[in-house]
């Protein structure tokens, strides 16, 4: 059998007893003939920050992009295994509903070429969430949750491109939050930002986890150490280990993890 299944001890998938929001079981993923993920099993705890680290090309982003089925939109891809949200298989459910419940923030800020207001209201609009609700209220609430309200309140109707890179990324977070997702996926959200903007987003994430479950892919180990409750280490398409962040960084059980953490490769 695949040696990867031996590398993953079953206990590593559940580092704590917190309720499980999402669970991946034996996920394999293929880009054409290339297998990008090998037998990934991972639990994502409710109202926690789960970080995924690993060198480039290790499959962490691929895994994240399977959690909201956005990888389906790529041609010639295939997934095996099961991913559940609140115990229900996401592959069986309506994809737009899944994506409404599981928001996503991308590597580079990608606001729509519209005003700040329109950017935020787009999600609620297409999901039919504006009925009987005040659009301005949704916009204010979302911007406040993304800690952007004070900076943006005077230019709500200006182009989103008038914001700085860090502000644009927080706008994208606000846009994702506007549809009240239960899970928020972030794919290296700070890789295009300066340290100050990065710090703001990290603070924001820690504050957000009371309201939703957060999964973040990051290149930056310090970032994982700062924000995450649990951290998973990916290498060559395999989940090497997933445990409490402290454990991963101070006392990892796998040799590969330790090598990576201590900077011996990657």
């Amino acid at each position, binding site marked *: 059998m695949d040696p990867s299944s031996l590398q993953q001890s079953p206990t590593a998938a559940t580092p704590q007893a917190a309720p499980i929001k999402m669970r991946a079981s034996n996920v394999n993923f293929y880009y054409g003939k290339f297998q990008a993920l090998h037998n990934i099993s991972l639990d994502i705890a409710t109202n926690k920050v789960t970080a995924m680290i690993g060198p480039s090309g290790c499959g962490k982003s691929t895994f994240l992009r399977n959690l*909201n089925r*956005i990888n389906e*939109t790529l*041609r010639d891809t295939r997934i095996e295994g099961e991913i559940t949200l609140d115990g229900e298989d996401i592959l069986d459910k309506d994809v*737009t*509903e899944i*994506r*409404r419940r599981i*928001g*996503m923030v*991308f590597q*580079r800020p*990608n*606001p*729509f*070429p*519209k*005003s700040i207001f*329109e950017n935020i209201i*787009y*999600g609620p609009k*297409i*999901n039919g969430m504006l009925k009987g609700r005040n659009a301005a209220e949704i916009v204010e609430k979302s911007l406040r949750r993304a800690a952007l309200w004070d900076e943006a309140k005077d230019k709500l*109707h*200006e*182009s*989103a*491109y*008038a914001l700085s890179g860090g502000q644009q990324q927080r706008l*994208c977070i606000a*846009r*994702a939050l506007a*549809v009240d997702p239960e899970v928020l996926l972030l794919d290296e959200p700070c890789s295009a930002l300066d340290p100050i903007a990065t710090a703001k987003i990290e603070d924001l994430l820690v504050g957000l986890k009371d309201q939703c479950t957060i999964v973040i892919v990051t290149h930056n180990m310090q970032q994982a150490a700062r924000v995450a409750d649990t951290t998973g280490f990916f290498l060559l398409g395999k989940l090497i280990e997933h445990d409490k962040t402290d454990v991963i960084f101070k006392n990892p059980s796998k040799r590969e993890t330790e090598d990576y953490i201590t900077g011996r490769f990657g």
Partner: protein
Amino acid sequence: MSTSAAAVAKPKLASKRLVGGDQVAQVFTCFFAVLILAVTAFLVYELWISSSPSKERFGFGFLTSRLWNPVTDQYGALPYIYGTVLTSFLALVIAVPLGVGAAIYLSELALPKWSNALTFLVELLAAVPSVIFGLLAIFTLVPIMRDYVQPGLQKVFGNESFLFGGPTFGVGYLTAGLILAVMTFPFIISVSREALMAVPREQREAALALGATQWESTWQIVLPYAKLGILGSVFLGLARALGETMAVTMVIGNDPGIHASLLSPGYTIASVIANEFSEAGGKYYPSALVELGLVLFALTMIINGVAQLLIVLTTKKGSAKA
């Protein structure tokens, strides 16, 4: 000291070794760029000078007069302006939805292999000489229009109706508009497709990740993002439609009148120039034809100007290209 000497010596050395490629390239490319300006300026100058007898005699009345009579040397441009604008407008009304729709399919939905093959065919279509389109129109489109489409339209709308009244000859504004649509829509497809494919994947994914369907993502996010390019394709198509001569001449009916009915024969600026230039004698006849050319040139300029204005106005807020 040695560095300043080197700095002085360098250009000389460079020219000797003929590696001053940057300077040479600058001179050459600048020359080519200026050439474009020069050709345009010369064109306008020639049109202006050659049309002066007509301009002096008819003044602005040339633009508003419906009279075109070589026997009495009376010339007015209105029927031709009307025909040109009307047929181009009809062409766009037909070609824009078709072209943009096809571009959406090719860029968003079709398999890449299929999309590339189809795009190749579309570009081939754009390269077909217009006289071929004209021939096809005369031998197939005109009979179909005369025997089926025009009577059909009259059956639906009544043969006294404003837009579709009058006798059905097959030739006319609508037929010319149709053939122009066929000729412009390859341009619209291929340029719009490029514009749509240039929309970053992240934009589509942002919409999809919010729970948008593929249609919502395409219609509400991708299309607006690409609107500049699509608008550009429309104006490229319009430019072709306005100036198209051969195919239109063959199916427009060559009737220098102004008719409301789309089924009636008409005339366009380009076709009247092509038809009458060889037999234009005297002082005013050729000059009036040249002035028509000037009018067509101005028409194109005005439409392009309006397009630029439109682009500036629509991109002020939330521009894709900040």
